[in-house]
């Protein structure tokens, strides 16, 4: 039992969170194991973004627990969670608009020791070579795919143990999504666990080990990627197929 | 609300000079607050320098009465007219700005007009302007101004109420949802903003005109005084402006606090006003909602 716990990078139990008077998440349970790729699926409005924000600390946890590498982090401020090894690539990327790619990456290294910055940057540029030519470019002028790479790169600069990505492929052409997925798989193999929110079922499940489906603030389905994909009720509620 | 109004209107029969002049001050600042809310609250444009209209109203009334020998009523009318004209004139210029830039713009306007008034011989320059005395006993005079201030406050609140319910109010709500939204709904955003500001200017100018005649001596730093805008804003926050009672109570609190501190801590009054402001903002940065 304790051996299994130790290999869990993330363990969420009964998470309740919301905005103002509105409760969005009504008790969510979810785990991510060491070096796993877990997909979080659900239609728009299911609560996925809210969940990611609660994990990263941007919104408060009202009830339940979030254990990261064995320690409770639900009460910890957002910026401190980064130093512990949780990094979120937010919905809409939220790059630092007036700054260059290099500056954005440098900002991402805020919690990293100065001596390690150059090496970390090299690792990221080897995963996203397209960024190498664009280091001096202001991020506002990058294409959608490049911006997403820069955003992911920025979050990776802190050397996280768990990378959270909210809406990976939104607005991107399929071949770009493929490139991103391949890059992320390389990152995962290097040791970073991934929790990815993704609307495109195919992209979401391609490299994922396991998946969860969220609906109206609760987990309604979970299992290995293959199991989830095959589940009939998933097909019906998520993809709108009629029961055969 | 009518009961309160009636009670207040009849008050001079029952209370003394001190109460009447204190309440007059309260009505005056409450009026400025309700008028400020028209542009800052409904309109969403933080007109920090709105006190410029108070000064314009005061000086227009003064100049009309002193240089042209015309009666008070015409002086007030002039005050309102010039205030409205100023808003209409500078509106197109300043409404291109947003947020802090607009606020500074209005501050600049206030400063510039104050400088102008200080340097024009017409307005008495830096030495100030003396208006004719109203005559009659001090009590009668004070009562007269009391009723005038009360009436102005009531008028301002009613106007605000009507504006919110009318087409202008609809336009404001659209504006607050966003310029583009408003424009796509067919709202002429500039006209809306100018109309709001003109209304705000009119009532502020009216208060200024009354102030000039009641005090009989005005100087630029007195009437173009930012502290009035600031007090008005604090009252806006504390009292809301949907009712007559709200701003009234808030104004009483603020003026009362200032008066008390002036009495006991003569040298510190400026600082204490600052502390009061800080306290209000820290504890109620977005205002207190009073129940109607």
């Amino acid at each position, binding site marked *: 039992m304790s051996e299994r716990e130790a290999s869990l990078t993330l363990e969420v139990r009964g998470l309740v969170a919301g905005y103002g008077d509105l409760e969005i998440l009504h008790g969510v349970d979810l785990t991510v194991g060491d070096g796993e790729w877990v997909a979080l699926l659900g239609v728009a409005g299911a609560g996925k973004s809210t969940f990611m924000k609660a994990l990263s600390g941007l919104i408060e946890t009202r009830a339940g627990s979030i254990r990261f590498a064995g320690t409770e982090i639900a009460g910890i401020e957002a910026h401190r969670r980064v130093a512990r090894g949780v990094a979120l690539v937010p919905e809409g990327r939220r790059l630092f608009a007036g700054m260059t790619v290099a500056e954005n990456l440098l900002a991402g290294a*805020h919690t990293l020791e100065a001596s390690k910055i150059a090496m970390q940057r090299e690792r990221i540029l080897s995963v996203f070579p397209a960024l190498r030519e664009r280091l001096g470019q202001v991020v506002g002028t990058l294409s959608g795919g490049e911006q997403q790479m820069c955003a992911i790169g920025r979050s990776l600069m802190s050397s996280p143990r768990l990378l959270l990505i909210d809406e990976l492929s939104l607005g991107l052409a399929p071949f770009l999504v493929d490139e991103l997925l391949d890059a992320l798989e390389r990152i995962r193999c290097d040791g970073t666990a991934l929790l990815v929110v993704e609307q495109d079922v195919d992209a979401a499940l391609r490299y994922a080990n396991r998946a969860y489906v969220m609906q109206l603030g609760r987990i309604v389905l979970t299992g290995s990627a293959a199991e989830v994909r095959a589940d009939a009720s998933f097909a019906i509620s998520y993809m709108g197929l009629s029961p055969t | 609300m009518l009961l309160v109004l009636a009670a207040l209107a009849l008050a001079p029969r029952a209370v003394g000079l001190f109460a009447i002049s204190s309440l007059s001050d309260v009505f005056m600042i409450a009026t400025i607050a309700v008028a400020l809310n028209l542009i800052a609250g409904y309109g969403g444009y933080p007109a920090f320098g709105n006190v410029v209209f108070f000064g314009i109203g005061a000086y227009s009334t003064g100049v009309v009465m002193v240089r042209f020998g015309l009666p008070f009523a015409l002086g007030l009318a002039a005050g309102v007219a010039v205030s409205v004209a100023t808003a209409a004139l500078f509106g197109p210029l300043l409404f*291109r700005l947003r947020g802090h830039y607009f606020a500074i*713009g209005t501050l600049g306007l206030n400063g510039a007009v104050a400088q102008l008034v200080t340097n024009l011989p017409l307005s008495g320059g830096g030495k100030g302007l003396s208006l004719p005395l109203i005559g009659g006993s001090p009590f009668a005079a004070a009562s007269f101004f009391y009723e005038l201030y009360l009436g102005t406050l009531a008028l301002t609140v009613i106007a605000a109420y009507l504006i919110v319910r009318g087409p202008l109010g609809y336009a404001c709500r659209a504006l607050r949802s966003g310029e583009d939204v408003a424009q796509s709904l067919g709202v002429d955003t500039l006209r809306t903003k100018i109309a709001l500001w003109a209304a705000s200017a009119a009532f502020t100018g009216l208060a200024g005109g009354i102030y000039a005649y009641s005090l009989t001596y005005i100087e630029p730093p007195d009437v173009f005084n930012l502290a009035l805008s600031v007090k008005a804003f604090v009252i806006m926050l504390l009292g809301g402006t949907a009712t007559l009672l709200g701003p009234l109570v808030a104004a009483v609190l603020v003026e009362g606090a200032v008066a008390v501190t002036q009495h006991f801590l003569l040298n510190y009054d400026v600082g204490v006003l600052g502390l009061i402001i800080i306290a209000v903002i820290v504890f109620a940065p*977005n205002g207190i909602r009073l129940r109607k």
Partner: protein
Amino acid sequence: MEIVQAVFNGILIGGFYASMAMGFSIVWGVMNIINLAHGSLIIIGAYITYELVSRFGLDPFVTIPFAALALFAIGYALQRYLINRVLQASLFATLVLTFGLDRVLVNANLQIFSADVRGVTPPYAGAALVLGDLRLPWIRIAVFAVAILSTLLLWLLLEKTRLGTAIKALSFDRDAAQLVGIDPKHLYALTFGLGSALAGIAGALVATISSFSPVIGDGLAMRSFVVVVLGGLGSVPGAIAGGTILGVVENLMSIIAPAYRDAAAFGLLVLVLAIRPQGLFGRRFYAEI
């Protein structure tokens, strides 16, 4: 010739205006706070210099680091424990808060130091660089040099250090900044502290070249925003350009129409807002409104 002298005087004072305005500018640019108490903070710096010079006989330029440090601490505390609570409230609210703060500080200064006008006159105050008909007091040249130096140091901090990158990031997107580990409360306080430190330096310089009293702070604050609006928010070259323009215009007005010298600042403000509100060098260097 009078005009040339006026222009040079304007340039020298312009450097001072630029450094004074930079403190105001970073607070506005990064935190979207117009600090109406900026003038009073400058005056506190001036008093620190005055006290150190009159009590300990220090040279005014030596007091600059003390003024800077003291104001940094004051500014950090003010932001962290007071202004921070109001950061998310309306714009009017933050304006009014800093206005209230300014009133409190002015009052405090009046109580502690009295309304007497003071100044610091070091023994070398009279010496000047003379070039033909042009007379440039060394002390004003030194003030100019210090001002430009402090402005450049700030620029270096913002552009070339990790701290500067973090501050800029915070100004662009508070949430995203948190997501890379930046602590907003601490960094906002640091930024306000830096702005206050610059105010402290400006105060030390004011004490050296002019007389001062608690009430002149307002005029200095107003000039700070004219310079920022003129030069463009968040731009260091803008602040230098803006400061120089204001300085030159004011000095020329002293010759042409002395009564309207103060109106010159207002006039410039209105002009810039009318024609080019983002100022000369305004660009998305810091996040705006």
